């Protein structure tokens, strides 16, 4: 190894140490936990090595519920939030007056604390002895019947959760997309106008391809983020998510470790690895698709 090379490794060392201690080591630790059957926290002993933990988790109805919830959340919110963000960004980009103002408005949720936003959603949706919540007031005033969004039917709870997730992730996506749109060289649009290109065609044939790397970036990070949903759900539905039937995979992992019925690091590790495998697979598929369809300038 020549001198330059060893120098490079020296510079990399701090980052490598951090990555090793906080990323690589825990990952291996989780893998080890996940295959130790009947692990006992107190005595730090286990019976044997095997796939029992995975089998247990995959049969656990709470886990299956969490899996279903997470998938619904991902499938609904990722396309929806990206699409809405794109619409709003195009809107913001096409106005000249008050652009900064709108940008700030749409960015507010990003700088607001998750739990505070969750509280606002409670006020909007929750039934209390004193009021039915703002949304129910709207529904009844339009002639519908009030729905309990927090403790009521599954679809209502899911609706609130998706609504909330979309709303929370919008600002970041709008920020990314407005800057992507603004960085497209205006000469492309001028050239298109000289050729009499319709607005729709300009959008689909020029704008979209130009910002496609950013869209794919948002989709991939959106998938990963939605798969890891947890704190938002707690903010709305409280900590007893299994009882509410609104648990997520990360919530399940947490409960297995620290929840009322917790103390099972092996089950938690197995669930965490299943999540890891899902996210890895989806990200790989995303990258494959994006490689074929994305133009990188």
């Amino acid at each position, binding site marked *: 190894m020549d001198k330059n090379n060893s120098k490079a490794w020296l510079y990399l060392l701090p980052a490598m140490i951090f990555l090793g201690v906080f990323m690589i080591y825990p990952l291996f630790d989780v893998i080890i936990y996940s295959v130790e059957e009947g692990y006992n926290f107190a005595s730090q002993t286990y019976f044997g090595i095997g796939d029992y933990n995975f089998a247990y988790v995959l049969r656990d109805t709470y886990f299956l519920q969490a899996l279903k919830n997470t998938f619904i959340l991902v499938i609904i919110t990722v396309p929806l939030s990206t699409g809405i963000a794109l619409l709003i960004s195009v809107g913001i980009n096409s106005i000249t007056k008050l652009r900064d103002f709108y940008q700030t408005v749409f960015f507010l949720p990003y700088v607001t604390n998750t739990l505070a936003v969750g509280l606002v959603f409670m006020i909007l949706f929750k039934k209390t002895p004193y009021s039915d919540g703002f949304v129910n007031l709207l529904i009844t005033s339009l002639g519908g019947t009030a729905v309990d969004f927090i403790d009521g039917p599954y679809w209502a709870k899911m609706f609130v959760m998706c609504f909330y997730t979309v709303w929370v992730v919008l600002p970041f996506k709008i920020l990314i997309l407005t800057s992507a749109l603004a960085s497209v060289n205006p*000469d492309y649009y001028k050239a298109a106008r000289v050729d*009499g290109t319709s607005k729709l065609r300009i959008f689909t044939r020029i704008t979209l391809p130009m910002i496609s790397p950013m869209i794919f970036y948002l989709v991939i990070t959106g998938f990963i983020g939605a798969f890891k949903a947890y704190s938002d759900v707690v903010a709305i539905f409280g900590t007893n998510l299994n009882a509410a039937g609104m648990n997520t995979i990360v919530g399940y992992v947490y409960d297995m470790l620290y929840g009322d019925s917790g103390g099972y690091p092996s089950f938690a590790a197995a669930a965490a690895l299943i999540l890891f495998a899902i996210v890895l697979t989806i990200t790989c598929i995303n990258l494959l698709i994006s490689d074929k369809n994305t133009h990188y300038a």
Partner: protein
Amino acid sequence: MKIVLQNLTKRYPNRNKKIKEDVIAVNNFSFEIPDGQLIGLLGPSGCGKSTTLNMICGLEKPTSGKIFFGDDDVTDLPPENRGVGMVFQSYALYPHLTVLQNIMFPMENLKGKDKMTKEAMRARAEEAARMVQIDQLLERKPSELSGGQQQRVAIARALVKVPRVLLLDEPLSNLDARLRLQTREEIRRIQRETGVTTVFVTHDQEEAMSISDLIVVMEAGVVQQIAKPQLVYEDPINLFVAKFLGTPPINVFEGEVKGGVVYIGEDAVMKAEPDSSWKEGAPGAAPGVALKDGRVTIGIRPEGFDPEKDGELRCGLTAVEVMGRDTSIVATNAHAANGSIRTIVSTEELSEVSGETVNFRIKPSRIYLFDHETGARVRCRFTPLR
């Protein structure tokens, strides 16, 4: 197709919001561009060239004034209905499309009875590509092409719909010097072949001189002079035009006219008498002012100096530079605009030059007088003192 610009004016609200006053990007521009000619729109950066071009194109609406293509008033037409092709400084080739797709893009927008089949579009695109000699590169992406090739693709795309008018906004400024020379010949050839009326914007006077049929010199939104390239150089209308054209630039002196003699400092360099064939303000007469005694600004082209032992203009010798076929004498004179002058002389004349000082005779055909305040050309005839 001739293009007529009638009192074309464009005002923009100032970008600096604190300044209420509008920016006048183009001020009362009137001109008739003859059919099939290549017009060089020349001026320093920010003088309103792009704005003028964009108004001809239809990308910008004039604040006032009218534009005609032939006899059609196109002032209120959108660009796609004017039949213009435009080449941008950045080329604006769509990076995600191949060369062929880029050239076909304008035709794919055609609607109704103009709609073309895929095969027809392809054939036309290939024809355009052949004309600019990029028919080997049709399947490549723009990022896989050199700057010069990208430029050709942009020209092919602008020409593919057979426009009535071709507009080029600083098309060569992103190319290196050698390619720039080559590509401007190419543009000239294509323009000749197609006979399309062309407006070529540039801030490079050499470029404009070399390819234009007519040059329009602009400054601060105002047209200064419209003439054939050689005439703009030999008969500049004012000090700005004289200074803007020519490399090396014209040498400018502060001087004086006393009793029909032009002085630079103490040195009497030339006899000047009023031009009898010219009358100020007469119809058809070239713009300018009449000769009178007093301070003047004197411009002398670099090739207007003959080094001679008993030359009238006395200067200090700084350096003799031989650059290829040109030889330059760099000299100092207290009355020159920045204290120093640069001349171009033939090598034979160099035998006269040595020591600390150099004296020059001035050629009457290369000296110009300008009004000391306005820079307007002083119309007069020169004769040597001896």
